[in-house]
């Protein structure tokens, strides 16, 4: 029922988005010989060898485990500390609240490049270098402010009367918060978790700086392999394809909330 123009615009835009991804997938299913010697639009000599290489070599697949570990840790930490803070900002006025809120947001604006070296020194000096928790904490720098901001937006939408009624009914604060308030902002928590996952998963500069072996993220494993062998395009492409999967899964789970979620509860 809409104009055909819209369909054309969207088709072109989605093609623009998908063609480079297709090329990556295409390459991951080819042998290196086919990649470098011929130019083919789809694999002539279909192979899964590149994926086998990654999934059987711990130095490759542990990269995924490491990445997912610190991303999960970061998401849990960020949401846990952001919830009470967001509640405070959405419900109370207190000394310095506005300055504090803005100061929190400024951390989202800090270039990771600025923090790379000091983080390296800080975490080395407290013996956390090359651990998952180090990366998880470092990513809190930009994820906690974001989580506070998103959750505050959603909490502002819950009428105060709900809090007051619960207190009159004799709920204690922690019980009220967990039993009544949390379910009301469940979608907000989901959105905040989505963004924490997203920004922690895609970040490389800090996670690479803070790790060497034990907690090395997959993304960093990829860069090293490129510089070392330089030519193993098939494996590189396969590794790239595998990094798309966690993101794809997350999107699938939140597909119905994407539109609302991206507005950060502020529409």
């Amino acid at each position, binding site marked *: 029922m*809409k104009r055909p123009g819209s369909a054309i615009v*969207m088709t072109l835009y*989605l093609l*623009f*988005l998908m063609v*480079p991804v297709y*090329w990556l997938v295409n*390459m991951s299913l080819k042998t290196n010989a086919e*990649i470098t010697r011929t130019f083919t639009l789809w694999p002539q000599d279909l192979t899964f060898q590149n994926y086998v290489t990654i999934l059987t070599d711990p130095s490759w697949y542990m990269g995924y485990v490491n990445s997912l570990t610190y991303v999960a840790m970061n998401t849990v*930490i960020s949401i*846990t*500390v*952001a919830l*009470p803070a967001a509640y*405070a900002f959405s*419900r*109370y*006025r*207190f*000394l310095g*609240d506005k300055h*504090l809120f*803005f100061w*929190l947001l400024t951390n*989202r*604006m800090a*270039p*990771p*490049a*600025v923090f*790379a*070296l*000091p983080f390296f020194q*800080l975490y080395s000096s407290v013996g956390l270098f090359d651990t998952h928790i180090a990366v998880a904490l470092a990513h*809190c720098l930009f994820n*906690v402010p974001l989580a506070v901001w998103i959750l505050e937006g959603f909490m502002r939408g819950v009428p105060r009367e709900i809090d007051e009624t619960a207190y009159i009914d004799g709920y204690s604060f922690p019980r009220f918060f967990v039993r009544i308030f949390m379910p009301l902002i469940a979608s907000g928590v989901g959105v905040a978790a989505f963004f924490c996952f997203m920004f922690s*998963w*895609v*970040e490389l500069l800090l996670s690479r700086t803070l790790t060497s072996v034990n907690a090395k*993220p997959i*993304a*960093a494993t990829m*860069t090293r392999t490129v510089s070392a062998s330089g030519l193993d*395009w098939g494996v*590189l*492409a396969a590794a*790239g394809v595998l*990094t798309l999967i966690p*993101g*794809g899964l997350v*999107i*699938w789970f939140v*597909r*119905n909330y*994407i*539109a*609302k979620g991206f*507005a950060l509860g*502020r*529409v």
Partner: protein
Amino acid sequence: MDKSQNNRAWFLVLPVLVLVAFSAVIPLMTVVNYSVQDTFGNNAFFWAGLEWFEEIITSERIHAALGRQVLFTAIILAIQVPLGIFVALHMPKKGFWASLCLILMAMPLLIPFNVVGTIWQIFGRVDIGLLGRVLTALGFDYNYTSDWLDAWATVIVMDVWHWTSLVALLCYAGLQSIPEAYYQAAKIDQASRWAVFRHIELPKMRGVLLIAVLLRFMDSFMIYTEPFVVTGGGPGNATTFLSIDLVKMAIGQFDLGPAAAFSIIYFLVILLISWVFYTVMTNLDRETK
């Protein structure tokens, strides 16, 4: 909403405060510390005053990087914001196609930055990349590793590919909140397509658009990984943006003092511009109440 005064709310904010202090304040103090000292190795530091700041502010290398950075961010915003709005206006409103568009559009946003770089590195190569091959076949002398214009074009197209969907999704969320009656009323009033956009759609998108511009400004101003993977800052210094330069200085050359001074100035510039955005945003918020 009327908030009540309660200073005990500080207790609720305390965990965030401790965490952010640990991961932001301590490192920042280290940076400040370095920025005013000089070292000849062996962990021996000397007071250097504002020498490094002076050096950075007058450095032509930094000026050039800043110039490239501002140009890059300006181009990015000039393309992504209108394009994002345009795409959002053409997205299906509901049903299967809407879900499909949302999922495919969100894809690039969840790809690790260096993989984004890798995708475009592969895609653009003249020997094995589709884009490189096609452009060469069409008679263009395209090579992003040797020609600065090609390098710029590649990095910009890559960023448009990577982030336009964020703007589009934000705008789409804004558009979704417009009740059908507004469009119906506009039809009754015989409003033109432009009037519908100007008086119904744009006002509803204003809030999310500001978030989009703010995020896109900050992130493009801090961009590091994607161009680094594709071009390594080259050819020459053509795509060496501020973050790339900073990392080169701090980790490549280990010039801690100048790098620290650079960091502080860099941070302050972002802070200043973001503060302007923030003020505009909260003022607009108040106006709509």
